[in-house]
């Protein structure tokens, strides 16, 4: 109970004083997760739309896999990325291990199935609605994909936010491939794990509160942007 109240006090204090260590960790958390989600969206949105729109061999298998991989355990993704990026692994020469780059790769893999699977569903729903129009326009396959992604952009935002939620909150993958190195690869979640293992539960929870506040802020900003772009929903 004492730790709980202390945690809120600490969280408030860290936020108000803009604690230098905290801003560094928050900055890296955002930079890594935004980049990972950005890359995953660039790949995942067209991939999801393709699964929804095109008929090709293996489409059903791919759809099932994308849905199943939404639940990929972060620690397994971390382990696989570690084995790939290790100096003894196939991509070791890149020297990416224990850098933010490695963390971005891991989070991107983690988030990609979420964005692809959710956008497949969104695009599939839109396709029903737009089917006649698209046919009357005699739209080609690429044009159909682009049109539906563009028209579904506000709904697709939810898929991207779901991916962001996953990325910013996971600890298993970034711990393994980032190493939780102070002033280098330490992010919010690994800092929380570290403070917990030091037995400083109040500070750990305080950081947790800051992380949640951060996630809420990002979501509010995203939805706010959507409402500005689409005034009838404001």
């Amino acid at each position, binding site marked *: 109970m004492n730790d709980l109240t202390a945690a809120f006090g600490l969280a408030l204090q860290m936020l108000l004083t803009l604690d230098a260590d905290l801003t560094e960790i928050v900055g890296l958390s955002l930079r890594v997760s935004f980049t990972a989600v950005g890359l995953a969206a660039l790949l995942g949105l067209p991939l999801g739309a393709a699964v929804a729109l095109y008929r090709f061999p293996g489409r059903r298998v791919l759809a099932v896999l994308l849905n199943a991989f939404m639940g990929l355990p972060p620690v397994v993704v971390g382990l696989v990325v570690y084995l790939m990026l290790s100096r003894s692994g196939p991509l070791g020469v890149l020297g990416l291990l224990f850098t933010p780059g490695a963390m971005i790769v891991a989070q991107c893999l983690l988030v990609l199935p979420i964005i692809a699977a959710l956008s497949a569903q969104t695009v599939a729903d839109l396709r029903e609605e737009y089917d006649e129009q698209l046919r009357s326009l005699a739209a080609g396959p690429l044009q159909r994909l682009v049109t539906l992604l563009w028209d579904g952009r506000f709904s697709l935002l939810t898929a991207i936010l779901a991916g962001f939620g996953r990325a910013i909150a996971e600890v298993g993958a970034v711990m393994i491939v980032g190493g939780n*190195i102070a002033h280098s690869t330490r992010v919010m979640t690994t800092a929380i794990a570290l403070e917990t293992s030091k037995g400083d539960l109040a500070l750990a929870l305080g950081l947790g509160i800051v992380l949640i506040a951060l996630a809420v802020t990002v979501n509010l900003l995203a939805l706010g942007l959507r409402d500005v772009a689409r005034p009838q929903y404001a």
Partner: protein
Amino acid sequence: MVNRRSLMAGVVLATFLALPAWAQEKSIVVASTTSTENSGLFGYILPKFEAASGIKVKVVAVGTGQAIKLAKNGDADVLFVHHRPSEEKFVAEGLGVKRFDVMYNNFVLVGPKSDPAGVRGMTDAPAALAKVAAAKAVFASRGDDSGTHKKERGLWKIAKVDVEAASGQWYRETGSGMGATLNTASGLGAYALADRGTWLSFANKGDLEIAVEGDRRLFNPYGVILVNPGKHAHVKAMEGQAFIDWLVSDAGQKAIGEYKINGLQLFFPNAKKMGS
């Protein structure tokens, strides 16, 4: 629109590819144990080394077993751990260049104030563990192949207790770091073996206190080894050796000895004088 999209892709990709450039400064990766990091020692001594040398030290703090694995794979430049037999094996296999003594402290057996096994004040660690086993008092083990875990297994062996058989009953393997295991012990009212450094700096002691200490078999020496550049060409041998040289130098040894929590010294420098 397709153009704008591909332009965006290009920008993001370029950012991504430029990422390794973040790590361009002079730096080394040190694979070490949770005890050195969680106790705050690195937080105290590393800024001194970085100021003196201009080399940034990136510490990956994991169990000794995992740290050795990282070093073996070439994912670290320097290994700084605390299980001498494993360290000597690492060097003997040609994976490391040479082992240097750096510092030591000792392990303590901690347990709940109620002391259900009646071991408080004993100075014979294996005998105390035998009593814990006889009383079937709950014991929280690291269970993670760390230096502390290896030490604990060795003590059980001397005590002639088969903990494997009791696993899941009174013998609980947490499979996690020192701090997490102490959190578990604190919650369960269990006994646990801890290094004194982590114990002293641990903030969630709850009902736990030191039950057994002072056995010379609880000695806990730390060694530092440069990963063999002959095995992994990318190992930063010059910078890594500079770190090792500093640790065993007067300045490094003094910094280690100076680190205190609540006035208590956590680690005792014991590097051999150069040339001796």
